[in-house]
């Protein structure tokens, strides 16, 4: 038994994932992005315990003050600590980014996998639907949805997720189409496995590379969309807060108190930066065409 396992390790080559990790590690920008992202997520999770001040803790007498030793990023017009507010805002921004992307991921992967796997007329109909949805002016629909049904966080997740799944479905469908004809899928068929098990066990895991890359690139565009809506006053509503909303407030008073605009702006841009660099790095790392050098 022991001897058996040692031979196995000895014969083991580098898998696709190990390969990708090695390549990714060489990409400094992507690693910096990954590090920053992990840091932000940890901060966001711990915010209620590590925030220096209370979220609604005001000091009206102090008012807006520039950065100082007590308030690292200054305070807003109500004397609320900006660092605290940016930390809480980041929780919402990141949460919208991750959850809406997860919605898009779930719909897109299942839809694309089914269309690509079943093929034929079903595929034609399903993809024509995607084409039609693609042509819709979605920004306008999201604005409309938020106006019609009121600003509600759940609806925001749903609306953004409903937009972003389309590209995911296309990517997965293309992958599945090419996988379907390969021998190991035929082998699974001849073993009498059910369609669902084949999709779940053999097809979906093999499409993971492009899906991971596209997911990493979807998160920043979702966060941008949320910030955009909040900026227009159609997204997150006070007392909740997000970076987009903080930027919106910052703009109103930027002549007198520029730090109220600049710090939330930096927070948002840095996060988008980190996600985009990580996504680019992952694409280079997972693309088999840039194989081992």
């Amino acid at each position: 038994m022991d001897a058996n396992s040692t031979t196995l390790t000895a014969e083991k080559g580098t898998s696709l994932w190990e390969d990708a990790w090695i390549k990714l590690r060489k990409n400094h920008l992507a690693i910096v992005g990954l590090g920053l992202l992990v840091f932000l997520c940890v901060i966001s999770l711990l915010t209620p315990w590590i925030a220096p001040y209370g979220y609604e803790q005001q000091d009206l007498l102090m008012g807006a003050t520039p950065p100082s030793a007590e308030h690292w990023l200054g305070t807003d017009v109500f004397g609320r600590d900006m660092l605290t507010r940016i930390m809480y805002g980041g929780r919402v921004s990141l949460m919208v980014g991750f959850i809406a992307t997860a919605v898009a991921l779930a719909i897109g992967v299942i839809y694309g996998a089914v269309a690509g796997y079943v093929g034929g007329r079903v595929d034609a109909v399903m993809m024509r639907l995607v084409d039609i949805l693609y042509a819709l002016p979605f920004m306008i629909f999201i604005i409309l949805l938020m106006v019609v049904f009121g600003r509600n966080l759940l609806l925001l997740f749903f609306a953004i997720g409903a937009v972003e799944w389309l590209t995911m479905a296309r990517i997965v469908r293309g992958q599945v189409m090419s996988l379907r004809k390969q021998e190991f899928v035929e082998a699974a068929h001849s073993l009498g496995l059910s369609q669902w098990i084949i999709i779940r066990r053999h097809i979906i895991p093999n499409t993971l590379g492009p899906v991971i890359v596209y997911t990493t690139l979807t998160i920043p565009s979702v966060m941008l969309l949320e910030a955009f809506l909040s900026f227009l006053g159609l997204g997150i509503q006070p007392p909740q807060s997000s970076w987009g909303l903080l930027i919106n407030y910052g703009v109103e008073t930027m002549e007198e108190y520029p730090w109220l605009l600049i710090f939330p702006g930096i927070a948002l841009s840095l996060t988008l930066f980190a996600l985009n660099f990580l996504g680019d790095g992952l694409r280079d790392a997972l693309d088999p065409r840039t194989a081992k050098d």
Partner: protein
Amino acid sequence: MLRFALSRLLQAIPVLLVVITMTFLLVHSAPGGPFSADKAVPAEVLEALEAQYNLNQPLWQQYISYLGDVVRGDMGPSFKYPGRSVNELIYSGLGTTAELGFYAMLVAIFIGVIAGVTASMRPNTMQDYVPMTAAMIGICMPSFLLGPLLVLIFGIHLDWLPVSGWNQIPGDKILPAITLGTGYAAYIARLSRGGMLEVLSQDYIRTARAKGLSEFLIIGKHALRGGLIPVVAFLGPAFAGLLGGSFVVETIYQIPGLGRFYVQAAFNRDYTMILGTTVFFATLIIVFNLLSDMLAVWLNPKLRQQVRGE
């Protein structure tokens, strides 16, 4: 080519129908009508108003009559601006938004193509990294952040450029155009770099080099045409995004364009105005996607053959 354009136009009809139907249903399912204003209106007045705008008919009848109007190009009267039709309002905003979009696209294409081509000439050197890092910054800097920052720097601190209005003070179009164009410049830079890199490795470029052509001629005459195809394909969807961007930029700089009208109409529950602008935007986007597809076919001989072969 004609057949290709026609078949694409035919495909656009169901898309438009879906847009109109979805918007119609959404707007009509909204809680609170266009006349549920702050002041309480007497019941008779409300009834008279609703009768005037056909709001008392069953929904399907309103839908059918609206479809008929749209086909004839009549978007109906505006609920919030009495006496003005949606057509008039769209027309008055369109010129401004089109001009803003045009300047923004000029900024985007000019900066984007130059940066992308420069980067592609010496890949993986400083000449590549510097413009591409700048492009990444452009992508990560949303217009609602870039706009206020530009205003803060160039409008308020340096006091070089006007910060609001449109067509009133000379130079008031510069900041809006840059704000709207920067994000697209960044995407175009990335796309043209990728496209050029692919083209520059092909045989016909090697032939051109072997003939001893100058680098300027090789890039300008031979490589650009093929290398910019991804950029051309991007222009159609970019146009759609540009409209979305105009919501923000027109709000920041207080420009009386379509984007601001739309946001206001949405806040005011101006039924016909929302319906009208949505249908109008959708048509525009579809037309521009079609145009950019046709341009891509015209630029790429391989695609041209495929289209003819059909």
